[in-house]
Each structure stands twice: as C-alpha cells, then as structure tokens.
C-alpha cells in the first residue's frame, strides 16, 4: 500500500452500519467466509469487528505455521497441533491437510482472493480485530503472540457493547 489512507466516509452525514463477526472455528473455509464478509462489508462502508475466540485465535497468531506457541506444556502442544493461518484445516474432506492446498491453488487459478489476501485486505481496511481473553487464558496465549493489528483483548461484556446496534454472526 502506498501513501496515507483515509477511510472516513464521504460527504453525506449517513449513520454508519455495523457488522460484528465471532470467529470461532479456525477452519480454512469458515475463515474465508469470515474474512469475505468482513472485507466486503468494510468496503461498502460498514464498521466491522471480528472477535476471535477458541480455535479462531489460530488465525491471528504471528506464527502462521506449526509452532510451540503458548505458556505451559499442554498449551504449547495444542498450539503446535493447531498451528496458525497457514495450517488451518477445511471443515470437510480435509484429507490430512491436502484440501487447503488444493483450495489455495484453485483460488489463485480462478483469480479469487486467497485467505491470506483477504486477511491482508482486512488489515488494509482497518477492520477491528479483537481476541477473546478467556480463550487466550485457556490456551496460554498472550497479546504479543498475535499480529500487531489485533486492537485489543476483550471479554463478553465489551464485545456486546461494541456489537450493539449492528448485526452479529457466529462462524
């Protein structure tokens, strides 16, 4: 991206619509759905929040492959087997991790944005990314384990406050 960006709305004093997504599954196809909705909505003027919880947290880890991330023996082991964005399995017919590779190939070949491109677009559109405090605690993760675009660590009460007045979708 070049130069400064300004995502403020144009000249009409319209009220901004809002979409909040709860990214729970951490699966490749559901992450594609999450980031497609998020970037599409942000691009047409919605304020967008994504709240990553449980397996969803894998998508925002700094280390995108398999790595022993997390504090403690069990969290580290979980962290390794779950991996990050690049190791996300598909929810059906994963074939031991072969399917996400096939999907990435097909998406590139058909000129459809890949998961990684969608995540980059989400960052460029300044979508609000949040991590779930409770799930981080279970999995021994800290904010520094996540990409720096993650705006904050939240609990249910703050998420409900942020999502109020808009639509919320659980994926």
């Amino acid at each position, binding site marked *: 991206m070049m*130069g400064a960006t300004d995502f403020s*709305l*144009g000249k*009409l004093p319209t009220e901004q619509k809002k979409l909040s997504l709860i990214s729970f599954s951490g699966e490749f196809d559901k992450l594609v759905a999450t980031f497609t909705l998020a970037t599409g909505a942000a*691009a047409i003027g919605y304020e967008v929040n994504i709240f990553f919880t449980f397996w969803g947290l894998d998508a925002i880890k700094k280390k995108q492959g398999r790595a022993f991330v997390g504090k403690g023996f069990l969290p580290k082991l979980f962290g390794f087997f779950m991996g990050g964005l690049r190791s996300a399995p598909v929810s059906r017919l994963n074939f031991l991790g072969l399917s996400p590779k096939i999907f990435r190939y097909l998406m590139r070949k058909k*000129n459809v944005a890949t998961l990684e*491109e969608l995540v980059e*677009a989400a960052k460029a*559109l300044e979508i609000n990314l949040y991590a779930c405090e409770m799930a981080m605690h279970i999995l021994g993760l800290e904010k520094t384990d996540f990409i720096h675009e993650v705006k904050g660590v939240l609990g249910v009460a703050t998420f409900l406050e942020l999502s109020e007045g808009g639509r919320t979708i659980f994926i």
Partner: protein
Amino acid sequence: MSTFKLDITREHCPMTFVKTKIELSKLKSGDVLEVLLTEGEPLENVPKSSREQGFNVLEVSHVEGLVHKVLIQK
C-alpha cells in the same frame, strides 16, 4: 484535482469493492477514480455503495462488451 485509474474487471467479490475502497482511501478530496468493471454485481453495487458512502458518482458509461466505466469523485 487528479484522476486515478483502477481496473477490477478480473476481480471477484469481495475484492471488487475492497480494491475500490482502498484506492479511494488513497485519494485527496476532489480527486477522481476511474473504475473499469464488469456487468452484474460490480456494476450494480460499486456505484451504489460509493454513493451511499457519500462519494460523487460522476459518470457510469459503457466501454465495450461487458465492461463499463464508473467515475467516482472523493
């Protein structure tokens, strides 16, 4: 005031909107973005969502085949 160009004829949802929005964000007030897009969702929704966000859609015209041109002023 300058004019910038963006070709999204080979893009699919959501990148049609995403690339338009990111390109518009780089412009100064008064600048114009010339977007080449195809019929269907991009033609129906890029001008509409730009208007909804308060940008001026100066022109929507047919170029050739399925390709159309939209001029959006920030």
